[in-house]
C-alpha cells in the first residue's frame, strides 16, 4: 500500500482533506456482490439486491465501473480495489477515491448524513431478520416491497433543511453541537417504538408535506413491525439521498482530481498511454445518455477557466445549483449539448434545439428534485373519511398513469382509506382515485372511467 500513501500525500498537498480512507482488496469475482449491497457488508435479505447484482453483472455502467470504483460515505471512508487491476488502474482509482472522500467530508449536502452507517445497516438487517422469524419470510418480503415502492416519496431537501434548523437552534440556544444527532436518534426511536404516541386519526399539523413515506409510517394504523420496516427503508433512503443529488458534481470532482493528481506526478511516464486510454473511456459520451463523469469534469475545468473557487463550489453545491452557477452559453456550445425531443411516432429521440437557455432549463428540470416527480400530500380529509389527497407538481412531464395507479393502490392498502392523486396529461388535469382496491381516472370534473391495462 505504498502507492496509497503516495496518492494520499499528493491529494493532501493539493488541498484535499478527508476522514481516514481505508482500502479493501476484492477478488474480481466478488466485485458485483459487494456493489449490489452498496458497499456495505451487511444488508437485510431482499431479492432486489439479487436483481441489482444481475444488473451489474450484465449491464454496462458508466465511467470507471469497468475497472471498478466503489467508495462508501462513512467515517472512516471505505473504498474497494480489485486485485486483478494493473498498478496504473489502482493508482487511478485511489486518486479518484480521495476526490470522493474529500467531497463526502466537505459537501454541504452530505453534512446531515449518518457517518457510521455500517452499524446502522447491520442493525437494520438484524431487525428485519427478527421480523422474518416472527412473521414469516413472505409477509415481511411483501411488506418490504410495499415500502420500497414508496421509498422515493420524500422531500430530497428535507434532511438538509432539518440539519440547518437544528444547527441554528443550537447556535441560538447554545445547546451542545451534537443535539441534532440526539434529536434524530430520538425521532427514529419514536418511529421504532411506534403506535403508542403517534395515534392515527387526527389531521396532522405538518401538512402539506413531501415526506409521504414518513407521514404514513407515523400516522397509519400499522403493526409495530410494519412501522419498523417503513422506518428502516426511510432511514436508508435518506442516507443514500445526497448521492442522488450530487452525481455530476461528485463524479466530476473525483475525475478532475484523479486526472490532475496522476498527470501531476503519480504516473510513471511508461503508464501515460494506458492512463489516457482508461481516462478517456471513463469520460466519453456514448449514445443514449449524458455521462455524469464527462459533464462533471468539464464543468470543473470550465469553472477553473472562469476563475471560480473550485473548493467553494464543491462545498456548497448539488448538481442543480452547480450546473446553474457554472454552465453558460460558451460551455453549452462547446460541449455540443442539445435538448432531445421524443417523437410521437415512436422512432426515438431527435435533436430538438441547441438554444443554450433551453438546454440549461431542460437539464435543470431533469436534475431537480433528485430526478423524481414531485408528489405532495396536500390534504387528509376529516370526519372519518381520512381520504388522502396527493398533488403531482406537473412540470410538463406526465406521469406513467398505469404505474401511478399501482402506487396509489399500494398507498391505499397501507393507509386503509381512499387515496386520490391530482396530476395532468399535457394541459389536462387528471384525477386518479383509489378506493376499495380499484383505481379510477377522470378528467377534472368529468365522469370517471376505468384506467386501461392493469390499473383497475
Amino acid at each position: 500500500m505504498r502507492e496509497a500513501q503516495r496518492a494520499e500525500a499528493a491529494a493532501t498537498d493539493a488541498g484535499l482533506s478527508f476522514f481516514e480512507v481505508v482500502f479493501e482488496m476484492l477478488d474480481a469475482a466478488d466485485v458485483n456482490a459487494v456493489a449490489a449491497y452498496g458497499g456495505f457488508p451487511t444488508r437485510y435479505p431482499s431479492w432486489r439486491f439479487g436483481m441489482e447484482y444481475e444488473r451489474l453483472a450484465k449491464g454496462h455502467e458508466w465511467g470507471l465501473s469497468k475497472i471498478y470504483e466503489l467508495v462508501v460515505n462513512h467515517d472512516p471512508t471505505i473504498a474497494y480495489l480489485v486485485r486483478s487491476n494493473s498498478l496504473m488502474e489502482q493508482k487511478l482509482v485511489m486518486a479518484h477515491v480521495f476526490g470522493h472522500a474529500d467531497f463526502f467530508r466537505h459537501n454541504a449536502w452530505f453534512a446531515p448524513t449518518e457517518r457510521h452507517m455500517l452499524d446502522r445497516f447491520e442493525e437494520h438487517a438484524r431487525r428485519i431478520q427478527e421480523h422474518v422469524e416472527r412473521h414469516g419470510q413472505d409477509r415481511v418480503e411483501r411488506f418490504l416491497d410495499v415500502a420500497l415502492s414508496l421509498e422515493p416519496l420524500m422531500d430530497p431537501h428535507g434532511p438538509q433543511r432539518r440539519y440547518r434548523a437544528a444547527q441554528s437552534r443550537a447556535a441560538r440556544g447554545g445547546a451542545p453541537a451534537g443535539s441534532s444527532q440526539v434529536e434524530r436518534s430520538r425521532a427514529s426511536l419514536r418511529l421504532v417504538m411506534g403506535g403508542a404516541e403517534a395515534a392515527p386519526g387526527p389531521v396532522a399539523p405538518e401538512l402539506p408535506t413531501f415526506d409521504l413515506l414518513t407521514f404514513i409510517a407515523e400516522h397509519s394504523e400499522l403493526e409495530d413491525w410494519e412501522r419498523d420496516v417503513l422506518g428502516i427503508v426511510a432511514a436508508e433512503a435518506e442516507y443514500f439521498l445526497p448521492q442522488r443529488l450530487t452525481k455530476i458534481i461528485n463524479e466530476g470532482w473525483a475525475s478532475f482530481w484523479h486526472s490532475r493528481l496522476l498527470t501531476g506526478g503519480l504516473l510513471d511516464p511508461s503508464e501515460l498511454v494506458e492512463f489516457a486510454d482508461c481516462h478517456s473511456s471513463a469520460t466519453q459520451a456514448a449514445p443514449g445518455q449524458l455521462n455524469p463523469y464527462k459533464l462533471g469534469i468539464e464543468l470543473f475545468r470550465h469553472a477553473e477557466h472562469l476563475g471560480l473557487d473550485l473548493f467553494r463550489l464543491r462545498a456548497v453545491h448539488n448538481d442543480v445549483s452547480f450546473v446553474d452557477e457554472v454552465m453558460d452559453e460558451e460551455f453549452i456550445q462547446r460541449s455540443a449539448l442539445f435538448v432531445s425531443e421524443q417523437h410521437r411516432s415512436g422512432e426515438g429521440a431527435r435533436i430538438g434545439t441547441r438554444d443554450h437557455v433551453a438546454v440549461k432549463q431542460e437539464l435543470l428540470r431533469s436534475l431537480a428534485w433528485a430526478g423524481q416527480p414531485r408528489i405532495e400530500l396536500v390534504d387528509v380529509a376529516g370526519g372519518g373519511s381520512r381520504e388522502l389527497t396527493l398533488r403531482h407538481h406537473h412540470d410538463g412531464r406526465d406521469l406513467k398513469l398505469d404505474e401511478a395507479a399501482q402506487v396509489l393502490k399500494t398507498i391505499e392498502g397501507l393507509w386503509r382509506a381512499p387515496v386520490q392523486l391530482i396530476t395532468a396529461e399535457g394541459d389536462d388535469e387528471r384525477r386518479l382515485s383509489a378506493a376499495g382496491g380499484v383505481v379510477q381516472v377522470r378528467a377534472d370534473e368529468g365522469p370517471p372511467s376505468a384506467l386501461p391495462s392493469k390499473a383497475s
Partner: protein
Amino acid sequence: MGGQIYRIDRDRARFKEVVRGRIREDLQRYLASSELIGKRGDRVVSVPVPSVELPRFRFGSNDGGVGQGPGEVGDAADGRDGEADGGAGGAGEQEGTHILEAEVELEELASMLGEELGLPNILPRGRDELDASGGQWSGIRGQGPQSLRHFRRTFRRALVRTIAAGELDLERPVVTPIREDHLYRALKPKPRPESSAVIMHMMDVSGSMGREQKDIVRIEAFWIDTWLRSQYRNLEVVYIVHDAAAKVVDKDTFFHLRESGGTKISSAYELCLDLIKERYHPDDFNIYPFHYSDGDNWSARDTDRCVSLVRDELLPRVNQFCYGQVKSAYGSGQFKKDLDTAFPEETALVTAGVDDRSGIPRAIKAFLGQGR
C-alpha cells in the same frame, strides 16, 4: 467478504424465484405478447425485468432530456442517421435505461405453459418409450481399452503412416503399428426415433397477411416450439413460407418477410411432403406440420388438391397436422371451413381460428391438447 458472497447467492436465488413467480402469474399476458420472442437461447429464455420492478411514480413518455453530440436540429439524437454521431439521452435519473433480463430455463417455461393450459405430455408413438437414448458401436476414437481395439483401422493408419514416411518396402511389406496408430471402437450416440421431432411451420405471406397477423403466428410458433422442445430431446424446426409458390427460409426471414401476391396453399403442402420424404422419414421423426394463413386460397381446385394431399400423403406420415387461421381484414376464412368439412372425424387434423392475440392461448391448447 465471505459472508457477503453467500448472501448474494441467496438474494439472487430469491430474485429468480420472484421472476419465475411473476411469469407464472402473468403467463396469460405473455402468451399473447411477443415480449419473450427472440430472447430464447437453446436452454434458457431471457425475460425482460421491468415487469418485476416495483411500481413507482415515474415520468412517462414526454420526458425529453439533454443529450450531447454533433448534428443538426431534427437529426436522431443518438446519432444513428448520418451526421450526428455523438451521444444523447436523458440526464438525471438514469435508472431503467438498461433493460435487465433474467434467465428462465426453457424447461420450466414449458412446464408453466403445460400447467396453465392443462397440456398433457405427449403419448409414445409406436414402439418404445418417448425418451430413448441409445447408440451403436460405430464410432472411432484414439483412446480405449485393448478389448475394443479396431484392428483393421489401426493397421490402415499404420500403413498410411509408413507410406507417407517412405519406409514401405514393397519387397518386404512389413507394417508395424505404433502407439499413435491405435484406434478403438467407440459408442456413437444415435438418438432413437422416438425422441426426435421436427416442426414444420408453414406461413402464408401473401398480401393479405398483415403485420399483426404475422405477429400472432410468431407468438404461436414460439410457444409451440417451447412446448415440443420440452417433450423431445432433439427438435428440428423447418420454416416454409408461401404465396403462390413455397420455399424454405431461415427463422429470421420467416418472421420478417413481407411478400405479396396470390395464395396457393398446395405449394406449401407439397414442399412439406417433399421434405418429409427426403429428410424426415416418419420412422426417424415425429412430424408436426403447422400451417398458418388467413384462409384465402387461390381456387377451389387448389383447395381440393390440399385436401387430398393432407388425406393421402401427409396424415399417414405425421403425428398431427395443425392449421391455424388468423383473422385478417381481407381474408375470407374459407379454408378452415373447407378443411373442417373435408375431415369431420379426423383427430389427427386440428384446426383453430384466431381472431386476435387473446385467442392465442386457446389455439395453442387446441393444437397441443391432444398429447399426440
